[in-house]
């Protein structure tokens, strides 16, 4: 098949063999040749020897999402050969290690099978066992370079960066391995294939990065100084990154740390540490995943009621329970929004990609202090651990943390009368806050038990209710402060589609989603439009839902709700929190652990439009 800068390549290996770095190298090479790429890693929840896949989509059109098809399979794992073989789209290619004969009965005449004696060549070249295993991976990268017309110079450059001067020997060895594959394919196959990469310049000004790294950067730049965590996939790399960056950029001139990262004994302790630090006045956060959020429920209820700022990252994985720790899902939406017993509700932010994970993390810290409450950054494994191509991150020097209504020692000195922690002086539901050690006049007792607006212990019905009602007002105030949705109505969605003059004229059909579904929905809209189906778009970025969301729902009479969980949690939140008429809402659900593919959305929409229901 003729596919230039527009195909999906998938590598099947076993984990713990070093294939991860080989695949990263491959992806980086394509990126550096100017072609937009998407990379998805499907790895097992163990350390060594189980099947793992890496999917790379080369997409000149910039559709950074799973297409749902595989055009080129690198089948390095005997254990999964059959299924990998079957997955290749008709007209596609399959590369395998021809050092050993492959299973004969697996024959398809609609795909081209490419054999390369990787092991054989590598074993001749390298002696040491571990080296052989590693080099076999680099060898298939070389083979692909030949077949797909990748620039070996780019590959070498990347290798040099990774190993640096000191490990020049490794660079040389790796290049030798790459050459093996490269020259073999050049020699034995008609290179390049019609399916290949062409140099272009569409990646300028972009970076390839994962969302846990950008979230870590966001936290550091927002001025977080205390982090507490308990390791859990897929959130672990967030704290690793934060520590790494702070070690380099958050030490004073004597090399002393201006941050403190606590590896807690469990998630209950992690959130407790964050609450303690937040109570003391530091910007503190904890990254975790579903099971951790479950364990934090009691403390989250405490944080809501005592009004302590805190930032929690839920890098969602597949639930329930331990579920599939290395697969992605959006099934903690309600858990996060309503975590904790009693009447509680929490601000949530929903980044769509690593770039936004950076921005929204900064907002999360500001909102947490502005509204004096726990704030959730609801991300997922797909955003957090996969490598995404996004525009380079920018920082505005003028940024100053929003500390909210925080009383200084001077302000406290001048305070007329007694300080009341939970009053509502400005009628926005937001009280004034004081920190320990600042001034005696600011002293009060923080308690999760019933308290009056002065912060004193109470069991009085009216005093209790007064505080609860103010908390509700505070949440309402937040509605207009949290980030607005991204809305694209047809006339300004760019490219194709019927134009409508002047300001957006509501069209009949809309689609609403959040988080990592964004890219899939965008591509689906494009394809649908090409087919003549126009859909307005609203991507929600925060809870509580603001007026713009209300309006979007109001102005459309069919609204597809796309989300990655079984129980339509996002749809349920729209039903509870907006005035929408349920009959408008059509759920498009995806929850098998793989990132949702654009084709899934497309097909669901089309089926509904001609059968009146989603298959």
């Amino acid at each position, binding site marked *: 098949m003729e596919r230039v800068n527009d195909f999906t390549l998938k590598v099947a290996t076993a984990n713990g063999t070093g294939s991860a770095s080989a695949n990263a190298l491959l992806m980086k090479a394509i990126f550096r040749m100017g072609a937009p790429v998407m990379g998805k890693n499907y790895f097992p929840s163990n350390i060594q020897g189980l099947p793992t896949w890496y999917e790379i989509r080369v997409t000149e059109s910039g559709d950074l999402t799973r297409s749902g098809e595989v055009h080129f399979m690198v089948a390095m794992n005997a254990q999964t050969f059959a299924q990998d073989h079957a997955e290749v789209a008709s007209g596609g290619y399959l590369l395998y290690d021809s050092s050993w004969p492959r299973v004969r009965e697996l024959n398809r005449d609609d795909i081209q099978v490419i054999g390369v004696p990787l092991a054989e060549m590598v074993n001749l070249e390298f002696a040491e066992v571990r080296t052989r295993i590693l080099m076999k991976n680099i060898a298939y990268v070389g083979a692909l370079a030949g077949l797909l017309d990748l620039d070996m110079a780019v590959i070498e450059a990347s290798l040099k960066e990774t190993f640096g001067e000191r490990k020049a020997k490794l660079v040389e060895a790796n290049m030798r391995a790459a050459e093996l594959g490269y020259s073999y394919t050049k020699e034995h196959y008609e290179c390049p294939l019609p399916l290949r990469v062409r140099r272009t310049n569409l990646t300028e000004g972009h970076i390839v990065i994962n969302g846990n790294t950008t979230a870590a950067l966001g936290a550091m730049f927002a001025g977080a100084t205390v982090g507490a965590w308990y390791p859990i996939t897929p959130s672990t790399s967030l704290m690793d990154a934060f520590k790494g960056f702070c070690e380099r950029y958050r030490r004073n001139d004597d090399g002393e740390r201006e941050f403190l990262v606590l590896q807690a004994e469990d998630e209950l302790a992690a959130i*407790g*540490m964050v609450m303690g630090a937040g109570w003391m006045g530091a910007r503190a956060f904890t990254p975790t995943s579903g099971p951790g959020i479950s364990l934090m429920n009691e403390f989250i209820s405490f944080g809501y009621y005592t009004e302590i700022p805190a930032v929690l990252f839920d890098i969602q994985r597949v639930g329930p329970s331990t579920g599939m720790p290395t697969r992605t899902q959006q099934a903690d939406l309600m858990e996060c929004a309503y975590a904790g017993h009693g009447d509680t509700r929490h601000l949530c932010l929903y980044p769509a990609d690593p770039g936004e994970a950076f921005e929204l993390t900064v907002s999360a810290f500001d909102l947490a202090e502005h509204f004096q409450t726990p704030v959730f950054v609801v991300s997922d494994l797909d955003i957090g651990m996969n490598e995404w191509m996004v525009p380079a991150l920018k*920082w505005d020097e003028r940024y100053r943390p929003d500390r909210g209504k925080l009383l200084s020692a001077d302000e406290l000195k001048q305070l007329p009368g007694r300080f009341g922690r939970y009053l509502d002086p400005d009628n926005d539901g937001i009280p004034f806050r004081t920190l320990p050690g600042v001034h005696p006049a600011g002293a009060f007792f923080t308690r999760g038990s019933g308290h009056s607006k002065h912060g004193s212990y109470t069991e009085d019905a009216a005093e209790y209710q007064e505080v609860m009602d103010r908390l509700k007002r505070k949440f309402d105030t937040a509605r207009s402060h949290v980030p607005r949705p991204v809305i694209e109505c047809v006339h300004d969605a760019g490219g194709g589609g019927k134009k409508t003059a002047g300001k957006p004229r509501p069209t009949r059909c809309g689609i609403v989603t959040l988080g990592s579904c964004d890219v899939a929905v965008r591509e689906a809209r494009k394809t649908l439009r090409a087919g003549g189906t126009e859909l307005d778009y609203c991507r929600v970025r925060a809870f509580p839902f603001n007026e713009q969301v209300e309006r979007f729902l109001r102005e459309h009479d069919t609204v597809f709700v796309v989300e990655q969980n079984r129980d339509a949690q996002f749809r349920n939140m729209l039903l509870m929190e907006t005035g929408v008429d349920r009959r408008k809402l059509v759920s498009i659900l995806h929850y098998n652990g793989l990132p949702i593919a654009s084709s899934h959305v497309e097909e669901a929409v089309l089926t509904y439009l001609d059968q009146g229901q989603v298959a």
Partner: protein
Amino acid sequence: MTYMKKPAVHHSGLPANELGYTVRDYEGGMSTLCAGCGHDSITAALIQACWELDIEPHNVAKMSGIGCSSKTPAYFLSQAHGINAVHGRMPSIATGANAANQDLHFIGVSGDGDSLSIGFGQFAHAIRRNVNMLYLIENNGVYGLTKGQFSASADVGSRAKGGVVNEQPPIEPVLTALSLGCTFVARSFSGDKEQLVTLIKAGLRHRGFAMIDVISPCVAFNDHEGSTKSYAHTREFHHPAIHTDFIEPKEEIRVEYARGASMPVELHDGSTIVLRKVDVDHDPTDRARAFGYLERHREAGEIVTGLLYLEEEAADLHAHNRTAPGSLVNARPRDDQAAILEEIQTRYR
């Protein structure tokens, strides 16, 4: 009903400390505990100790969990910020608060239920981190606030009010703390104010986790005949193994301390703890021997009190972290951040 603030009558007659404060300035709200509750005596000792040490009240962070014992931080130092964590989770709050601001004095008050049942894990790990704080377990062998169930510190053979006898081995705060590497391990009795005040002062000055297990009888549910945590039983069997004197930098050490079974230990702030052995076969600086000694006496049903183990040189949380001086509360916004972000991103291009 709402929490009662004591009328701030000023007893001019009272002596003032170096800051010019009288003991009254270290008090808090009116106690709502039962008349005669051991916890109230501990509150009094805390007030006394802070006053004697000339601590600026608002430079203290008061923390507790949930329980009758955990209510007490509301009853002292009303000029200090205080916090009631959720049940059993004060150690994590304390760790985070201390991480954020090492410049304050940290006082954690807990109960045997709060620290040894639901909170045991956090208690243990706060010890391991050697968080610089005073940690009091107001130990009455029962859950007071929930009306008298046995706690994990109930001794084998101790009889509940209802008559049930406890058969599970107790968690011994001092033994456990010792086995977890605690750097300041003490036990006292709410009825022995003199010893308690000294230990609290020493604990407040110790840099690291200072744990004091204070037997504090519950008059409502565990002060009867047959209870091993009653006033009567504790008075009869408590056995001071070490006599502790605390000497502030200002006072100089009186001579007679030099000799005999007494050992002076200098603290980071220049004050000194002088330990005088009452039992010669106990060495409060030898963990291995301390284990044996404490276990023997436990088996003998004796309640050994005093500063039982002290390790002054260990690094605390911040020393481990090599934290810059001062607090981490005010994120310092810098002006070179845009450039730094650029620099960082080169590797992702």
